[in-house]
């Protein structure tokens, strides 16, 4: 949900209901700042590339085993900075820059890194007056520190991989005393604006300084009647990165924009500032609900990443020397052997904190994923059921309603695992409670769902109704856990319940208390099949600046300004911890969040917030989730059907078909929309939706195994094609199709009235099989696929084996003991491999007791073999192999199952038109060692 009462909208809608729904349906941009309206961004951006005023003081260089420190000085104001360089294990370099002697400590982001990153030794290769050359361990990588002006270059052999401050945009606004309240500080202070700004005449600048002070917003800033008092004055930081040879950069979610990031020349930078944006617009760099300050750079040779660890408001500028060139122009350059190497330049600007950058040097995409995972952790391994289908609506009215929707799914034979309750379920939006009339018997309701092996999610938002009759509020008040306003009183803002307080989730004691509220004896009416949804955790404050919290609010000694982008992470962290604790650490949590930050992947799922029932919103769900996957968050989805407005039946069907192939699969709808449970659009459409959901359930074993892999390695589940085809430039900008793992390629139909789609099948010399018809297509081609309303173009990679459970039942738990069908898609060399992962689906026993089955399935030399990838694991399953389909096979004369030294014949059928060999009921247990021989 988002804010409803935006001024004037109510009035207009009464007048022009129709008009409002057709055209005037968009974000009110005036509610959100542009770079020009954000004082620090404006100051920093006014500062153009040139020679940096910073100089490295080489005589201050100190090198302990793995840590190098060096002072930098700004020749304009003589302020000293401290540079720290670390070589980290796994081919990463960390660059930290802080003031040498700040007036008081500057904020450094805690709780995002899973541990202090392990380092590797650094050594000085050479040193002279101009700089220092350091060895970055193996691979002939060097780090060159240039002294005057200061810059850093990371080289591999003769190639520069990445440069810092090469455009001279390092700027560090040091903490200072306010002039009008303090005596003139002695000497050192020469300038007040951006410290690096060296390009204007000094004397003149000083005069301008005083007059421009208010305008510059150094000590105070006002936006739409909200005044940000800035007791610490200007504190922003900026640094530029140059990426020679790079034309494609990705990441820095969350933006409703294409996968490949655009240059920001002439427009606003990409903004990272967690905001509750009402009816967001597509294809622009405006901030949304979450922020992950990680950018990936990719070319055919290498993939790298930049992780800017800062939780304050951040803006990212991107420019490129090839951006303006046409394809023809690029060709001309190539033919003429010309000129400039393509290069992308990036500049990061943050409002406060320090510069703390992790440079992940790849070189392969998978290396960058594991590098980032080693810093911030991997995707939490979700309960299997949460990979099923989720039915949500604002709101299911009462217990009767929940029951009848639940029955509706059974009547129409559509599987689902979770039904969701939005804010109306609670008693007056007092979270952790139930409406006494509409949900008077929550346990009865939950038991009813449990009887069908289904689950529920109830919303728990972080704004707490200020009400002395509300236990949660009273406890937070008595423990003094609320965020404080600038004057030290409890910060209060307007949200769903009316006047609300905001618990200080940055406080570990507060988080521990919050977690304890999920205990069964605290959260009345809760049961083990009740899970949680954290919405509005940007945090959303209806009457706050930009619909969020005032930056001068206080979290202990830190300003909200410093921690803003990680508030939502902490909310989800505390909630997930509560769910773990309520089971004594036995059960996996499931928590959905709207706001997020780097590291949020460790705590659950994310969705793309309040989208709309429009075709463009369906399309954008793909790049939005792809971007999140690239930076660690695999468990991503968009509201199926679109949150605002009513979808046409065709759009709804297409959205189900798309959502069934995205990681988090939940339908959701606004309070004002008409009902849209899957069976309300006539039998034909019910059948189409049923089929899409059933395809999802059949593939749950594959999804589950991919999430296990993501949990272990950091590999994204839903991926852009270039991740698996990094040398194929044709894949670099594709974001209307995607891969699930390496083996399924999905090109959903996202155009109204579509009669066909053109899918790019990557991989020269590879083949792809249509999963519905088993027709084989060659790789490295654009394939036109005629479509009808029932089509979901999906292809399985030749060379892969995908286990499915084709007996789809009404929930994932009902399918637990069902047998598997193996889909073996042969490569042109008659080879295929895949994995099978099985555990209990819900507990931590896979981790604590190694209770799981992990098997490698390999087809080679006409034999399909299952071998154990985890011999010291123990888990028993009653699932067995009921069928094996081998696509691209030739007809054998005989098929034999070899198991425990015995050979038994297996019945088979061969379809020569599609070259599909079906092995009938081989029957071995899914956890056993076996071989199927084709003779």
């Amino acid at each position, binding site marked *: 949900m988002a804010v*409803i009462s935006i001024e004037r909208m109510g009035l*207009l809608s009464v007048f022009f209901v129709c008009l409002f729904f057709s055209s005037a349906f968009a974000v009110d941009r005036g509610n959100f700042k542009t770079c020009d309206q954000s004082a620090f961004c404006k100051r920093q951006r006014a500062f153009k590339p040139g020679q940096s005023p910073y100089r490295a003081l080489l005589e201050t260089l100190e090198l302990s085993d793995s840590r190098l420190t060096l002072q930098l000085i700004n020749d304009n104001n003589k302020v000293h900075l401290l540079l720290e360089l670390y070589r980290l294990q796994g081919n990463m370099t960390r660059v930290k820059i802080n003031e040498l002697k700040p007036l008081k400590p500057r904020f450094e982001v805690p709780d995002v890194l899973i541990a202090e990153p392990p380092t590797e030794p650094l050594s000085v290769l050479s040193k002279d007056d101009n700089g220092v050359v350091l060895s970055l361990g193996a691979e002939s990588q060097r780090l060159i520190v240039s002294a005057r002006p200061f810059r850093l270059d990371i080289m591999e052999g003769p190639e520069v991989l990445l440069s810092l401050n090469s455009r001279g945009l390092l700027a560090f606004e040091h903490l200072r005393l306010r002039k009008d309240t303090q005596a003139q500080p002695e000497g050192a202070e020469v300038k007040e604006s951006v410290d690096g700004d060296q390009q204007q005449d000094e004397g003149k600048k000083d005069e301008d300084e005083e007059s421009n002070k208010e305008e510059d917003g150094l000590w105070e800033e006002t936006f739409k009647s909200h005044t940000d008092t800035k007791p610490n004055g200007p504190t922003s930081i900026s640094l530029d990165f140059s990426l020679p040879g790079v034309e494609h950069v990705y990441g820095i979610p969350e933006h409703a924009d294409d996968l490949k990031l655009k240059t920001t020349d002439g427009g606003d930078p990409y903004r990272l500032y967690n905001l509750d944006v009402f009816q967001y617009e597509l294809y622009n760099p405006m901030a949304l609900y979450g922020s992950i300050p990680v950018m990936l750079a990719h070319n055919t040779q290498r993939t790298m990443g930049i992780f800017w660890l800062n939780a304050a408001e951040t803006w990212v500028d991107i420019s490129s020397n090839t951006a303006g060139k046409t394809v023809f122009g690029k060709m001309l350059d190539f033919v003429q052997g010309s000129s400039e190497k393509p290069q992308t330049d990036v500049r990061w600007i943050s409002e406060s904190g320090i510069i703390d950058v992790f440079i992940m040097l790849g070189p392969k995409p998978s290396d960058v994923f594991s590098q980032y995972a080693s810093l911030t952790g991997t995707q939490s391994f979700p309960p299997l059921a949460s990979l099923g289908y989720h039915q949500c609506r604002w709101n299911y009215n009462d217990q009767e309603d929940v029951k009848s929707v639940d029955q509706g799914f059974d009547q129409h034979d559509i599987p689902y695992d979770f039904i969701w309750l939005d804010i109306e379920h609670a008693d007056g939006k007092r979270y952790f409670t139930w409406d006494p009339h509409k949900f008077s018997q929550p346990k009865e309701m939950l038991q009813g769902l449990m009887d069908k092996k289904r689950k529920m999610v109830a919303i728990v938002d972080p704004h707490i109704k200020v009400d002395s009759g509300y236990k949660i509020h009273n406890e937070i008040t008595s423990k003094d856990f609320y965020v404080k306003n600038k004057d030290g009183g409890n910060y209060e803002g307007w949200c769903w319940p009316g006047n609300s307080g905001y618990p200080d989730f940055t406080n570990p004691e507060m988080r521990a208390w919050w977690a304890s509220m999920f205990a069964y004896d605290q959260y009345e009416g809760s049961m083990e099949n009740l899970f949680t949804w954290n919405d509005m955790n940007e945090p959303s404050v209806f009457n706050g600046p930009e619909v969020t919290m005032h930056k001068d609010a206080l979290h202990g000694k830190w300003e909200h300004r410093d921690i803003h982008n990680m508030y939502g992470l902490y909310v989800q962290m505390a909630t997930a911890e509560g769910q773990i604790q309520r089971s004594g650490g036995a059960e996996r949590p499931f928590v959905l969040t709207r706001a997020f930050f780097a590291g949020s992947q460790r705590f659950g799922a994310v969705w793309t917030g309040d989208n709309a029932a429009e075709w463009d919103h369906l399309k954008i769900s793909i790049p939005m989730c792809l971007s999140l996957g690239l930076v660690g968050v695999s468990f991503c989805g968009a509201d199926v059907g679109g949150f605002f407005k009513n979808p046409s039946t065709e759009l709804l069907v297409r959205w189900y078909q798309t959502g069934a192939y995205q990681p988090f699969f939940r339908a959701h709808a606004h309070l*004002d929309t008409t*009902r849209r449970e899957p069976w309300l659009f006539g039998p034909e459409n019910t059948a189409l939706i049923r089929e899409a959901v059933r395809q999802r359930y059949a593939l749950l074993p594959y999804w589950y195994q991919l999430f296990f892999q993501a949990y272990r390695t950091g590999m994204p589940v839903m991926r852009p094609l270039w991740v698996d085809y990094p040398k194929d430039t044709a894949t670099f900008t594709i974001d209307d199709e995607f891969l699930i793992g390496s083996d399924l390629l999905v090109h959903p139909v996202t155009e109204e009235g579509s009669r066909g789609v053109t899918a790019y099948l990557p991989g020269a010399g590879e083949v792809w099989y249509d999963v519905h018809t088993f027709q084989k297509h060659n790789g490295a081609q654009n394939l036109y696929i005629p479509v009808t309303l029932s089509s979901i173009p999906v292809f399985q990679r030749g060379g892969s084996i995908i286990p499915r459970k084709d007996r789809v*039942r009404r929930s994932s738990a009902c399918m637990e003991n069902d047998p598997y069908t193996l889909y073996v898609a042969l490569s042109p060399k008659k080879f295929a491999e895949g994995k099978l992962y099985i555990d209990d689906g819900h507990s931590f026993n896979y981790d604590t007791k190694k209770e799981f089955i992990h098997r490698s399935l390999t087809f080679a030399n006409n034999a399909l073999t299952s071998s154990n990838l985890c011999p010291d694991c123990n888990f028993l399953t009653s699932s067995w192999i*009921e069928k094996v389909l081998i696509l691209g096979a030739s007809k054998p004369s005989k098929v034999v199952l070899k198991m425990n030294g015995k050979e038994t014949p297996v019945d088979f059928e061969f379809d020569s038109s599609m070259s599909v060999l079906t092995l009938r009921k081989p029957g071995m247990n899914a956890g056993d060692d076996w071989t199927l021989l084709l003779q």
Partner: protein
Amino acid sequence: MTCLHLLLTLVFAVSLGTPVEIQRPRGVPLTKKQFYEESKPFTCLDGSRTIPFDRVNDDYCDCKDGSDEPGTAACPNGSFHCTNAGYRPMFIPSSRINDGICDCCDTTDEYNSGAKCENTCKELGRKEREVLQKMAEITKEGFLLKQQLIEEAKKGREEKQGKVTDMQENKKQLEEKVEALRTVKEAAEQPEKEAKERHLKAWEGECSCKSIRLEKDKAKMAEAFLELDDNSDGFVSVSELQSHAELDPDADGTLTETEVQGLMGGAAQVDTSTFESVWTNIKDKYHSESQPEEPAPVETPPDEVKEPAVDNDSEPYPEDDISEEDDEDEDDEDDYHEDDDKVRVNIEKELSFDFGPDAEFTYMYSQCYELSTSEYIYRLCPFNRALWGREKNRPENNKYLVMKYEHGTGCWQGPNRSTTVKLTCGKETVVTSTSEPSRCEYLMEFTTPAVCQEPANTEPSPHGHEEL
């Protein structure tokens, strides 16, 4: 791997109480028993292929139509038959076999899942019989009441028709005047949108949507803007505001141009966005042009309901906008308000309604029925702008079981309000429940003897429905 019994022995109790064993594969209904003969190869029921009989119910799907696995979950499109002795037999999708959830009351669907199911067929059968019995009683009594209703309606109709005939003379005389009246009335109904805005206010008391309540003042403001903007140019001008003497700030009886300009903050005209500040100045004194100064009583006695709208602008809430217009023009049109004429028009109107095949719904005309819940009072006035529902997939003879009220006032950011009323047989005429499945789409359940069908002669079987 699961090992399944191919055949299941089923034991039935026939009326004489003699146990008889009938063998057939698990999940097969008796009616299809002949297709499953153990001694012969099995041919899929769609004829697509023939398989050895030992592949029936062997937990592997061989037939495209799922017919070889009636008793296992192997086929995605299969179905399982449970006999449910004591209750009623049913088919379930085969995906519900052994899924750990008890679906058949005789527990036969969970033969290998470990689920602890109890046979509840007897209990269910008993309850169903009780319900059926009760319903039969209600139907019986309800049908008697319906006969009375039909009788009364018939009498009433005859009386009224006679009255109309008596009035034919008068009618002729008044024809010209009626024609004039109709013109006036249609003109009054012209600005349909305006009328809807007026209804909005009445709705606010009942609507459960929070945003409407939040926006209550804005809605009033919007309403006022529309009314004030006499020339509908999107602006409220000084002269338009000046027509509202009640806004006079110094209460000297005249509202001068200067005073108006003061109210408007110096502007010559204001648009929708700037009107907000003006509204703050005037809202305490402002009198709506359409609302009477004293709020109309919420309870409109049925006999005062006049002139159900001729268009189908259905409104579950009675609202006498037409009569109010009439009041304003009383001086000019006094001649047309002769009692006879009004009565006649009303009767004609009444006679034109579809009160059901035997006019059994006539008694509801001009009646309203209420249901109080903890939050709201719902009020249903059938035939006051109602339509018989013509739902899709509903046979024509059932059209009298649903009433639809559509195109009500618009909700804030939502659809126009609509209500569906489902009618069921009952001794009394009452609204039994209401709900709002989607915002501003209401569902009411309504019982009435008028839909009671003639009870079938057969008494409900004391043994329920059993096979054999």
